[in-house]
């Protein structure tokens, strides 16, 4: 099984440690991981701003780079969702279909494809899980609070097995953090207010570490927390899953 590692642009540039954790974790799981260095971005920042026409060239580049792999794995629910959902405007060639079907967010790849949920890790901390919207509602990594159905969460399944972990309950378990891509720039006041409210919820309920499948949400939350000098740590889920392996 050959895995293409897709590291989203902002993780590549600002959070290399998240990329490293993802790569190390996949390698520890015995996988053959390739990182094609021509990669740039999935095109979402443009498309979400209404510039799908400019994004198409990026989509094509992505497909060209990644269609040769059995699976494409990425530490971002949002980018994966974009590839799966919004690459529908491309002519649906075999390559495009292959990429859309085989691109996975890290947690869902581990749970659904590798069919494991116990990574034998130790993480003795109180953790608040921020459920990033595109992963939750788009990729269906878990049950959104709006839907009346049996409860599941792939993210919680992986975390729950960490030794010593305490996952805190939130008052609003899956409200958006307000990042929303370029929304964070075009609607700065609402965006920041939404982020503050999320941080308050985590703090009220005793989170020491806030984690998520998406570093973009955490970048936004961390940006507010650092400005307000709040004492809470932010870790991408790959960093937790890659930590202290037994």
């Amino acid at each position, binding site marked *: 099984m*050959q895995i*293409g590692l897709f*590291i989203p*642009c*902002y*993780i*590549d540039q*600002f*959070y*290399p440690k998240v*990329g*490293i954790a993802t*790569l190390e974790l996949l390698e520890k799981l015995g996988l053959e*991981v*390739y*990182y*094609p*260095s021509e*990669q*740039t971005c999935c095109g979402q920042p443009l*498309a*979400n*701003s*209404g*510039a*799908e*026409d*400019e*994004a198409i*060239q*990026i989509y094509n*580049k992505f497909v060209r780079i990644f269609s040769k792999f059995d699976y494409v794995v990425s530490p971002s629910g949002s980018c994966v969702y974009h590839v799966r959902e919004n690459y529908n405007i491309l002519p649906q060639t075999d390559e495009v279909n292959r990429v859309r079907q085989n691109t996975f967010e890290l947690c869902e790849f581990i749970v659904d494809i590798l069919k494991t949920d116990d990574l034998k890790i130790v993480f003795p901390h109180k953790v608040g899980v921020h459920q990033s*919207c595109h992963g939750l*509602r788009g990729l269906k990594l878990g049950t*959104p*609070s*709006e*839907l*009346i159905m049996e409860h599941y969460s792939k993210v919680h399944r992986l975390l729950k097995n960490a030794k010593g972990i305490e996952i805190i309950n939130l008052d*609003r378990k899956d*409200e*958006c953090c*307000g*990042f*929303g*891509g370029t*929304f964070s*720039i*075009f*609607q*700065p*006041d*609402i965006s*920041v*207010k*939404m982020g503050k409210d999320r941080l308050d919820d985590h703090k009220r309920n005793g989170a020491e570490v806030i984690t998520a499948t998406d570093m973009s949400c955490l970048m*936004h939350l961390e*940006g*507010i927390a650092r*400005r307000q000098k709040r004492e809470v740590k932010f870790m991408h889920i790959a960093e937790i899953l890659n930590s202290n392996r037994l």
Partner: protein
Amino acid sequence: MTNHAHRAGRFLKNEERAAWHDKTLWMIRQKRDKMALDVPGWEELREQASQIKRHSLSKLNDYLVQFEEQAINNGAQIHWASTAGRLNEIVYRIIKENHASKVVKSKSMLTEECGLNPFLEKKGVKIIDTDLGERIIQLKQEPPSHIVMPAIHVKKEEISELFHQKLHSEKGNYDPTYLTATARLHLRQKFLEADVAITGVNFAIAENGAIVVCTNEGNADMGVHAAPIQIHCMGIEKIIPRTSDLAVFIRLLARSATGQHITTYTSHYLKPKTSGQMHIVIVDNGRSELIGKEDYRDSLKCIRCGACMNTCPVYRRSGGHSYHYVIPGPIGSILAPHSNSKKYKDLPFASSLCGSCSDVCPVKINIHGQLYRWRQDLSQKGVLSPIKKSIMKISGKILTSTKMYDWSGRIARWCIEHFPRKLIYNRLNIWGKERELPEASRESFKQWYNKNYGEGGKNGQK
């Protein structure tokens, strides 16, 4: 004209009030969750409702004709209004022909959409909104900020002051029961005086020509029963085929809207009173055009429950007026640009695309999908700012070229690391107004990878 972002910023200036607004609406969302949980097969019910609506829209022509025939048989008079202006004229003509001058109204977002009140007032007709929330904003001379709870943005202290000024209630009495009683007393008089009662329509049943209106205060009934002439205004999309279909929607509507099992009143109007008149005005106003747009057609399934507003993290924190369209919130943001894409170009961007609206919607409209689609269409129509367009064009070029992308990243990271803070956190850095930028990373992942796994990535060049 100011855009949503600007208005939202203004709303948020009063943090306490914004927090109160958010909390009030979130409570309603929680009540909805509790109600939905108690209904076995809630998700199947949503699917069924969605399919009934889709079916009805696909055969709308047939069902409208059937409805008209049935309603005429029942003794109602049917009027067709292609535009908002036509609706207003038709209603005014009915009023004038009957030498009427006093009108009461209940539960109609459609007449709000068509601007009926200002039209009639200009003609000298006195029109009173009889539902408490509607009456409050009518007295305040404000548009509704929510489609189900139009005065949700007004606090009881403000209502007390308003009633004191307009209805001469006791100053400083904030007791909701007292305030409601004041409004009731005032409105009873209006009901008794009214010549004409206007209502909106929740559902119109094709098989028997009946109109169904769901209310909590019973003012639609009060008006219709007291006034000799009743006028029901409905959009063409309100049609459902059979009475048995109604059960599906009645189970969903109040639960989604306010977290009630059912509204206090579910009124069926079939025929005029003895020696009375029953008019039904069927309004298009852009709807038939919308049926032709495949990407957006589904928005006509909307049953106006307002659940998408209650759940929307942006709506809750920006208030209904920030949307500057008659229907606020997520559903309003996908409807508004159809009427004027230039004026409402900001609304599809007033969303983080979290998708909560689509999951809460009782008729399964893919609201956030349509918001995303609108963004593309507005860009295609050329109504977005040229600066934004060129930024996107340049970004597109950079992200398509590996070399340009790598270098831009390097430069950005170098700047964050070396520039003085004052220079980085300048006026144009919108992100940095209330947020820190990520800490500068000396190395990108790609650089780290190339260093550790070989230049160009020994594994990367599969």
